[in-house]
């Protein structure tokens, strides 16, 4: 059903999931699988008349919880893999439905609901962390058909991988090296540096800081960071979490104001791979990658970005922060 194959050129694991070709694609609203199952209506994935926030296993998982095939661990941990290494795809893919309402988006939810969502994310992070085979938990949202979303109902996803994916793995190496060299957390140093500079700050609170990165990959990219060192959602105090919820809501509303249109984006929660693996440098943040560079104009991941990994960004980060400050209201 799902297979992991190692790219021998990059030493990266990739997921082959041909069954996902058959997943639901832009159904009409009355057949939305993420709405509650209402009396007389179509059955949905959520067989209750109403709910607050719901999580369920993806019907079309890239990484299924249980599947036939050998334990993938020996192959994943093999220090001398063959040229073509492959193994069973196993992990977890969950869908997080933010609200029973079909309309709206994460940015239009009230702060109390976003605060509850952060607690749901925390619960999933902790619970999935307890599974021995899970090595990295990724909480994210794709918004907008431009990003590839196939269901309009406000929702996000969680992938629990049986390995640490290449981007966080590389960042962990860099964070460890920075900590060994300086004795400090790289994320804490970035927060301090952005506050000191101020030129890329979008929003600043007692507990959170939102800034455009020094070297962004998306023209209006924002990183919403905890000011104190927190490795994961599980370490947040109530006040910190509430301010994070308010900041997230303000940024997403600002994105929709920026070009007076719903902003397609990717939301990525970046934290320690699991609750059991907090390293010296893991620093909780929510990274937001908005896809528009101008009204009606998408930033594409084209030749240089896709083949070389080198992003060409057409908006100066400091100018992007200026514009974002005008639309993001705390």
């Amino acid at each position: 059903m799902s297979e992991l194959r190692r790219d021998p050129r990059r030493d990266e694991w990739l997921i082959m999931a041909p069954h996902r070709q058959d997943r639901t694609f832009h159904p009409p609203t009355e057949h939305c699988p993420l709405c509650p199952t209402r009396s007389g209506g179509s059955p949905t994935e959520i067989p209750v008349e109403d709910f607050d926030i719901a999580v369920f296993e993806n019907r079309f998982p890239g990484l299924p919880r249980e599947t036939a095939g050998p334990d993938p661990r020996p192959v994943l941990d093999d220090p001398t893999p063959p040229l073509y290494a492959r193994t069973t795809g196993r992990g977890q893919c969950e869908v997080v439905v933010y609200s029973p309402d079909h309309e709206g988006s994460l940015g239009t939810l009230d702060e109390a609901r976003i605060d509850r969502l952060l607690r749901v994310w925390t619960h999933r992070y902790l619970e999935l962390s307890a599974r021995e085979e899970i090595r990295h938990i990724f909480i994210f949202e794709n918004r907008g058909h431009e990003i590839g979303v196939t269901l309009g109902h406000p929702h996000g996803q969680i992938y629990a991988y049986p390995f640490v994916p290449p981007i966080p793995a590389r960042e962990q190496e860099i964070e460890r090296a920075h900590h060994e060299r300086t004795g400090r957390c790289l994320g804490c140093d970035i927060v301090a540096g952005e506050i000191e500079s101020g030129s890329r700050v979008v929003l600043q609170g007692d507990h959170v800081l939102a800034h455009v990165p020094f070297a962004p990959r998306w023209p209006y990219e924002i990183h919403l960071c905890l000011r104190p060192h927190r490795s994961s959602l599980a370490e947040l105090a109530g006040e910190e979490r509430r301010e994070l919820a308010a900041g997230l809501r303000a940024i997403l509303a600002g994105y929709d104001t920026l070009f007076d249109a719903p902003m397609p984006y990717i939301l990525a929660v970046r934290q320690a791979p699991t609750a059991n693996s907090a390293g010296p440098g893991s620093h909780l943040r929510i990274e937001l990658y908005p896809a528009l560079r101008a009204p009606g104009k998408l930033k594409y991941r084209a030749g240089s970005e896709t083949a070389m990994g080198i992003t060409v960004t057409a908006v100066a980060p400091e100018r992007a922060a200026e514009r974002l400050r005008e639309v993001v209201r705390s």
Partner: protein
Amino acid sequence: MSDPAPTHVPTTDPTGAGIRVVRRTLPDGRYLLLYSEPEAGAGDGDDTESDAAGDRPPSHGARAASSGTGS
């Protein structure tokens, strides 16, 4: 469609997430988690949580959803 009832009454959640969760099992064996604010009197939601442990068996007679998630 039948509405599977939770097997367990929510109890204290040791995870510390500050959210109440009721677990159900969908007809095809996948799990469904329904979250809500902890009940009044159970704390302010920051340090008192509730959880239900374990899943119930698949609900016989419940129809599978006609459409899956495209995510």
